[in-house]
Every structure is written in C-alpha cells, then in structure tokens.
C-alpha cells in the first residue's frame, strides 16, 4: 500500500532534481568535435549587425554554454592568458568592456569563440594556434558569463582573488545587443 506512494515520491524527487542537473555538471576533458573540428573559418565569422540572417548556432554551443566546468576553466584561462590586461575583469580598458550587453561581433558563444580564435581589428590578437579549440570555447563560455548571459546556476560566484564587484551569480541577466558601431 505505502510502497507505491514511496516509489512515486522518489520519482518526483528524481524528476525535480533532473531539471536542475541538465548539462551543467558535464565534464569534458577534451574537445568533442561536433561537425567540423576547427572553429570559425568561414561561416560564423561574419558580423551581422543588428540583424536578419544569423547562421544557425554551432552544435558545440550546448557543450560549453551553461556548462559550469567550461565556464570555470575559461575563467582560469582568462587570468592566465592575461585577458585582464586589456579587458580588465570585464569592465574594459584598452579592449572593450565584456560585462555590458553590447556585442560588436555577436554575443552568441560561437561568435565569441570565433572572435577569440581569429582576433579582431584594433588589437584583439588571434588565439588560434596558441590555445586549443577546447580552450577557446571554454574562454568563450566564460566571456559570455561576464554579462550574465548563461543561467545563474552554472557560473561561479567569485574567484579566490581580489573582489571585482558584484558576484557573478548575482549579475543581472543580460540580453544580446549586437552593436553596429564596430569601430574602424
């Protein structure tokens, strides 16, 4: 009599937790190619200000976007590769700020990965060849998290270093504005 109820209770609990688990905790120790192996190249490279005909999202996005391990790894690389030097902790400096919701070259993770891999005019170096594809996507996932794009349960609240303002878990959820003011 009661056992059926217990089973139902357990199923309910399991269901509730599954919703939270998703791909957030998935740990990839190396890049798992989906489709092509090298990021960027031609397709998602185009800048599409504002607008209409965005190419479909790269299938790798779901391995990295909202993935806690990728974001954390990206965070480490962000410091180690001295991204801080130009972009500060997202606030910007020599390079553009990454915390706002303005994206000159697109705010989708595959677009950010392309930006990192290929570099951009006015100082952003190309990291392809210096970092692996896996690392570039990790970095892209982290950069996206700076403006509060991924879900809050995938980002880390802070690092073990000097405080840099609002904890990331509390940054307001941003939207993507593709700025068409990409400077020449």
């Amino acid at each position, binding site marked *: 009599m009661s056992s059926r109820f217990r089973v139902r209770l357990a199923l309910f*609990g399991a269901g509730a937790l599954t919703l*939270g688990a998703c791909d957030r*905790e998935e*740990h990839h120790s190396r890049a798992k190619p989906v489709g092509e192996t090298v990021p960027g190249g031609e397709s998602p490279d185009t800048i599409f200000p504002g607008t209409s005909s965005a190419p479909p999202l790269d299938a790798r996005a779901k391995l990295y976007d909202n993935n806690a*391990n990728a974001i*954390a790894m990206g965070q480490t690389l962000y410091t180690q590769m001295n991204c801080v030097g130009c972009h500060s902790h997202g606030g910007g400096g020599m390079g553009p700020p990454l915390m706002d919701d303005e994206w000159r070259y697109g705010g989708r993770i595959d677009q950010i990965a392309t930006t990192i891999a290929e570099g951009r005019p006015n100082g952003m170096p190309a990291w392809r060849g210096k970092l692996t594809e896996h690392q570039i996507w990790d970095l892209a996932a982290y950069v996206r998290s700076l403006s509060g794009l991924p879900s809050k349960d995938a980002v880390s609240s*802070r690092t073990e270093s000097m405080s840099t303002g609002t904890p*990331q878990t509390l940054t307001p959820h941003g939207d993507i504005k593709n700025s068409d003011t990409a400077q020449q």
Partner: protein
Amino acid sequence: MTDVRADTFDAMPTRESERERVEAENRRLAEERKRIARDGPKLKGAKLAARLDAAWNRPPGIIGWLATVDHKEIGRRYILTALGFLVLGGIMALIMRLQLAKPDNGMIGAERYNQLFSMHGSTMMFLFAVPVMEGVAVYMIPLMLGTRSTAFPRLNAFSYFMYLFGGLMLWIAFVLNMAPDVGWFEYTPLSGPQYSPGKHTDIWAQMVTYTEVAALAAAVVLVCTILKARAPGMTLARMPLFAWAMLVVGIMIIFAMPAVALVTTVLLIPDRLVGTQFFNAAEGGDALLFQHMFWFFGHPEVYIIFLPATGFVSVIVETFCRRPVFAHPVVVLALISTGILSFGLWVHHMFATGLPRVGYSFFTAASMSVSIPTGLQIFCWLATMWDGKPRFQVPMLYVVGFIVTFVIGGLTGVILASVPLDLQLHDTYFVVAHFHYVLIGGAVFPLLGIFTYWYPKITGRMMSETLGKIGFWLVFLGFHTTFLPMHWSGMLGMPRRVYTYPAGLGLELPNLISTIGSFVLAFGVVLFVVNGVLSLYRGVIAGPNPWGAASLEWATSSPPPVYNFEHIPIVESSTPLWDLDGELPVATGLRVDQKEMLLTTVVAAAPDLREPVPQASLWPFIAACAVGLVFAASIFSAWAVPFGLIPCGIALIAWFWPKDMQRKPEPEIS
C-alpha cells in the same frame, strides 16, 4: 513552582461577566475531569489494553504511515534507512577496494573514484553512523526509561523525514552524476566557487544541513525524554548506562552540530552562491577557518558515534555477565569527561597546517588524555566480566571483538596525537586504518551486537545463534584482514584519497590483502542481514525477556504494544528486573481515552506532571517537505530562502495550532 491547575482560575482578575463565564466553564470542566477513565486496579489487563490500543493506535493507511508519531515506528525507520545507507556506503567501499587491488589499475577513473570516496565518507558519517545510533535510541530509550513516548514525538517524526530527504538528495544527485567529489570534509578553497564549479559541492553542503537539522531535533527529543520522562524512582544514579551515554551524546550534538551547520550553510554556501569572502585569502578570508569550524564539529562527531556504542557494550556486558557494570559512577564520569574533552581536540586534525607549535603541545596532551576515560570504561567492563560468569552468545562475542579491536584503534590514536608522529602519518592509510578500527571496531561491532540483543524485543523473535556466530567470525576476521595491512601501507608511503598508486613502492601486497579482507567483511555483513531477514519468519518466539536482562524494556511484551507499558513501572534500583519479588511495582492514574505520559523531576525522578502526547499528524511530514524544498532550492538561488520560508511558516503554524478550539477538561494535543 507555580501550579496553574484549572481551579486556580478563581483568583483571576477579569471583567465581571467574562469572569463568571470562565468560572462556570471551569466548574463544568472540573466535573468532566472526574469522569475521565484512568488505569488502575479496576482497569487492567485485556480491558485496559483494548482501551489503550484505541487511544494510541495511529490511523491506518498511507496517511497514517506518514503521520505516525510512535517512537518505535520512527526508530525502526531510522534504523532501516541507516542500514540501507550502510549497504550503499559499503558497496562504494568495495568498488574502491577493487580499484586499489592492484597498482595503476584502470578500472575506475579519477573523477569517479573521487566521487566514490566522498560518497562513502559522507554516507557513513552523516547518513549511517549518527542516524543509526539515534534510531536505536529513539526506539529503545523510552522503553528503557519505562515511559510511553518520547518527548516531542512530532519533532521526532519531522527529524526522520529531514534525515531521509537529505539522504535521498545526496543519492539522487549521485545517480544524476552530480555527486560531491571533494571528500566528506570539503576543504576550501577546493570546495569553493572557483575550484568546484557546478552544484555538486552545494549538494553535499545541503545534505549536511538536512542531517544536522534532523540530528539536532533528535538530540533535543532524546535529552528531554531522558531528563523528564523517566519512570518514577529512576534517579539519575539508577539510570541505565545507555541512557547516560545518549544523554551525553545528545548534549554533545547540541554543542557540536551547529558548527558544521554554520560552516556549510552560513559560510560555504554563501561563498559559493552570493560571493561572500569567508574563505578567500585575497579578501581577508582564510582557508583554515573552514578546517577549524569543520573539526570543531568533526572531532566530537567521532565520540557522538562512539559513546552510544559504549552504552551498547555496557548493556550487553551487564546482561551477559549477570552483573551491573562495575563502578557505575566511574563509567558515567568517563562518559561525561569524554564528552567534554572531545571539544578540545580538534586541532589534532590540523597538525600539518603550520599553526603555532606551542598550541600543538596542548592539543597533543588533550588528545592523549581522552584515552584515560576510555581506558577506565574498558577496565570497568573487564572487571564486570571478571566478577561475573560471561555467557558466550552472539552479542557477547561482538563485545569481545570490540575490545580486541577498539583498543588497537585507541592506541594508534595515541600515536597520532603526537605531533612528530602525526606529521608522518597524517593523511595516510595509517590514519585510514586507525579510524576504521575506532569506528567499525568501536561502534559497528557493538552495534551488530546490540541488534542481535534487541532484535527479539523489536520483532518478538530471536536471531539464529549459529548464523550469528558464523557472521561474527566473518566480520571479525574480514575486518582485521582489511584494515590491519592498512597500517602497513600507510607506513610504506600510501597517502589517502588516491585513486591509484604506482607499482614498486611495496604497496601491492598490503592492498591486495585489504581487498580480499573487505569482501570477507562484506560477506559477514550480508550474512548478518540474511540472518535478520530469515529470523523474522523462522526465529524462535522470544517472550518478553529472553536474555534474563535487568532493564525495563524487558518488562513489556516483545514486540512492545504501541503504548509501551500498560502501567508505568516504578524503579527501586539500577537493575529493576533483577530486584523484584515476582511483581512489577507500578504507578497508575494516566488517562486511557487520550494519549498521556508521565513526567518526573530531573534528578530524583519524582512524579511531576501528566503530559498530553500529541496525536498522529501529517504536519511534521509537510513541514519537512517544505523545509527540504527550501534547502534544495537555495542551492540554486538565494531567493529560495525568503520565499520558501512562507510555506515553512504555514506548515509549522498548522503543526502547532490546536485543531479543536473547544476547551477540554484536561489538555489534549490534536
């Protein structure tokens, strides 16, 4: 003490009309009080049993199952759930042993292994060891004390559900690949936001919170029961040693567990969730703060597990040597001083952290001195055996196994208390061996003994003696084969928590022996479980007192009726059933139409109050669900706390709000 019985209301300064109305009501209630049925020479035997059954039985069905406040039912659930977790934790251990059977083994990867040992430790400490002791106590303490219920039975029910939900959350997370993987100790900064991304660490931290809420509730229930609900005449000096042990343990829980609840829920989770800086060295925090707080709880925790087991040993030794334990006051003092000393030892888990050396000497001395009370207790048991004529039945075998094993664990503990020795041995397999000797030898052996001992009381049937003896030898030999070589592998340079080790360090043989032993041990435990299940159907019918024991739980039938005792027994010595002349002196006058228990004074156990016992209620379960939901949701968002508190508040108010707004001649809790 001011007595506020209904008749004192005459003196109340109230408005005239109101006053008259209240007075009239008081008179009517006083009349009704005279008509309440009570047990006594005129109402006894089968007629009384039928009336008490009607008043005490819970409603049938699922609702009744969830609503029960019977300490025996809750205690049984506690024990069975904890045993379930023991089996799960044991399976984790066997998988780890297989992985370590040979060097450079590739059976299990690093990540999975790290989850396994984290789950093994967390399950055994939080979901097995402490809850099983509480479960046994929740079942047995009211029977040993000669009372009808625990104090706050609804809180007791709430405590069980909190514990269950905490365990479920951890294990569901494990199935979903979200298991914690940074150990049962979760040191920062490894468990902090940067190095443990994702939610698995939070799941561990919240599981701890659930089980601490449960343990604290159970501790309050037990302490209040032991202090206030003893049978008349059972002074503190005559109280059974197991009750003494649980009193000390309850108080220890009350002082120790807030530390771990604080360090996980108030410091670690905010660090991870909202970015507080408690453990961030760059912003004035300190990683060692976590260790201090954790071990301030963690060391007493060991004694919280061990002291109930000493209570078991005292119980078994008394019955099987047919003597009260030698020097009862010495044992009580030993229990109390162990409890106090255990709060002064936590730094011996941190000798390698580079704290000032002068402080270390103090903690060395304190850690060593805890072996004095323990040594005294062991002496008292041995002296009792010397004085009496031990009967070698299964429970007594486990006691002998306990002494042979635990003393080794105690002595390696003395070795580890020395700073220069600990610096070599800390975090090696030597320590793994040490605390398994203490926890399995010191707590699980007596636990298996006491299961065998109390099994007939709980089920009405005896466990098989033959299977029990085979099981004992398998457990005993399997245990030593597993853990004795670990001293050796630790000395040979094997650190803890490694998922593999290289060949050529001499670690191959001790590890292989350990692995073989672990399966023998597991087989012994399986045999014990099989014995338990088979004996449910095939065991010899036990009768009320199969072992010829002296304490009150044996004065009622096996299994006991839902109300425990038809009349409240009166106690005149520390071994009441051995000092009778054929009849049990009883006190009468408790009502039989409603649940009621007797409260006595704290020291002398003189009758003090008649206390209504709450009826079965779903609200503790609903409250546990609400609180559990807040805990689970707060892993993901801090907003869960303010919003989640609303349903919690509603459930708690409904729990306490009287369901019947009419005044009653005597208080009832509906």
